[in-house]
């Protein structure tokens, strides 16, 4: 059976990379009318960590069954 942690892990890693990229390299998109902080950077980092965590869990589980 497909381990769902692999595709969703990659998905959130990719989202995280895109958002962190936006936060670092696109100063025009760092803020919104009511938001002063660099929300793309922080949310992106959180998603990156979550994605990598899922991938790590999948790797550990795959190692156990082998």
């Amino acid at each position: 059976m497909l381990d769902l942690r692999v595709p969703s892990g990659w998905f959130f890693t990719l989202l995280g990379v895109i958002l962190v990229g936006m936060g670092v390299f696109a100063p025009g998109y760092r803020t919104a009318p009511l938001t002063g902080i660099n929300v793309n950077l922080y949310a992106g980092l959180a998603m990156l960590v979550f994605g990598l965590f899922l991938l790590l869990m999948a790797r550990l589980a795959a190692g156990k069954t082998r």
Partner: protein
Amino acid sequence: MKLAPVDYVILATYFAMVLGIGWMLRKKVSTSGDFLLSGRAVPVWITSLAFIAANLGAQELIGMAASGAKYGIMTAHFYWVGAIPAMVFMGLFMMPFYYGSKARSVPEYLKMRFDEKTRGFNAFTFAVMTIFSSGISMYALGLLLHLVLGWDFSTSVLATAVIVLAYTYLGGLTSAIYNEVLQFFLIVAGFAPLAILSCAKAGGWHGIVSRLPSNMTHSWSHMGSASQNPMGVELFGMVAGLGFVLSFGYWCTNFLVVQRAMAADSMSAARRTPLIGAIPKMFLPFVVILPGIAAVALAQVAGPGGAHLYELPLKLSGGVWVKDYDQVLTTLMAKFYPAGILGVGLTGLMASFMSGMAGNVTAFNTVFTYDIYQAYIRKGAPDQHYLKVGKMTTIVGVALSIGAAYLAGYYNNIMDILQFVFGFVNAPLFATFLLGMFWKKATANGAFSGLVTGTVAAALTWGLTVAEGKGGVFGHVHEFPSVMAQNFWIAIFAFTSCFLVTVLVSLVTARRQESELEGLVYGLTKIRRDENAKWYERPVVLAVFVLVLAVILNVWFA
């Protein structure tokens, strides 16, 4: 709201992802059981998250933010008084019978416990309900995307429907469930930042409390009488109507959610599905309701230019401008999200819509194939035939939902009524299940007459009472302070009359042999105790943990 190219990239990545998951799972489908029931082989963490995600449709997401703005923290009652106790009851007491009976659907359990007509009644109402709920939510999303982004209604409705169809057709229930988990993560990723940002801008929870009337920020303190709280509901109506009848009716008998638990890979996993799901479920109010409450507070904070930071959206209704709470969520996104995270939020909204729709479609095709087609149209065909029927039904179900979405667009009033009716259609059903599972003397004729009486009682209560100027089609006997109170009391009447009639008729009609009821009724079923399970894997331990957390949350925000 204007989208940047990066937002479209995120949306496209997500679409590719859900289709990819469907594609990877297509080879697992070789029998009708694989397609419609996931072959009972899904890991428990996945079924748990799918259990709550199938209920977290776009309407739920938009509606909870709207209710947060309208009723305040009392909206959390839908979670902390409604869903959580019902989910615990389901896992501890009802799942052993659902899973242990080997029934393939909720209507099929009714057939095994009672008889064919009870099953037919439930299968038919459920099938109609899923199609209309799916259509109504499709309409709501299409309308919102049109209002907010200017997208064409038909294009957005058809495009999302085709994607849902593609992945459910390819991988069946497994694909729907796997995608629901991804969608759940995405909903949280897309909306948790909004909750944090809006709450922080309004001065944190203390800032919100200081700006709003006390009955918006206390969930229990103003429940003494209906006139004191924004929902217009008194304590008994809330606890008995919402907390008991409606929530237990929904979470314990609605096949849409029960199906997710039934797909688990063992009895223990099936019982733990609603219990584990309850843990993230009880924190969802902080993601879906809090932004709505924060929005009302922000509407009272003066910005640098003197104007308020945020204004509640308005719409023209009957020549007057009224608050349009349904747009609270999207207008907040526009205020707080720059391109990038805006794409994630929008994708989260689409994801919630898709998980709700896929939930309806996969429940519909199972009930149609097993409980209508196999029971009434063609019995005893080879399994491959039912697999084909299941796949065809998926296409038909999506097509019918699209039809219902357009119907909703043309006849707004009919849809309002239908949506209201769906709110309490499950209420009598819970009495039937309660008696069926825990009272061995309940008979088939008792159950059927109780179910019919309960449904009629619900319709009568609705037709004879008025709330907020609506209802009262057959007369004007009583006036409720709010539609919400009316809905709760309809449920209470429906449940009580179904319960009483089932008991009375059961006492005078023929009972079945006790040996035929093994595995279906409490007292005649051996519930396996998981002696080998680790302590944290035992349902009772989990249930206690969940209930303690729920009590803490209730007291905290009382």
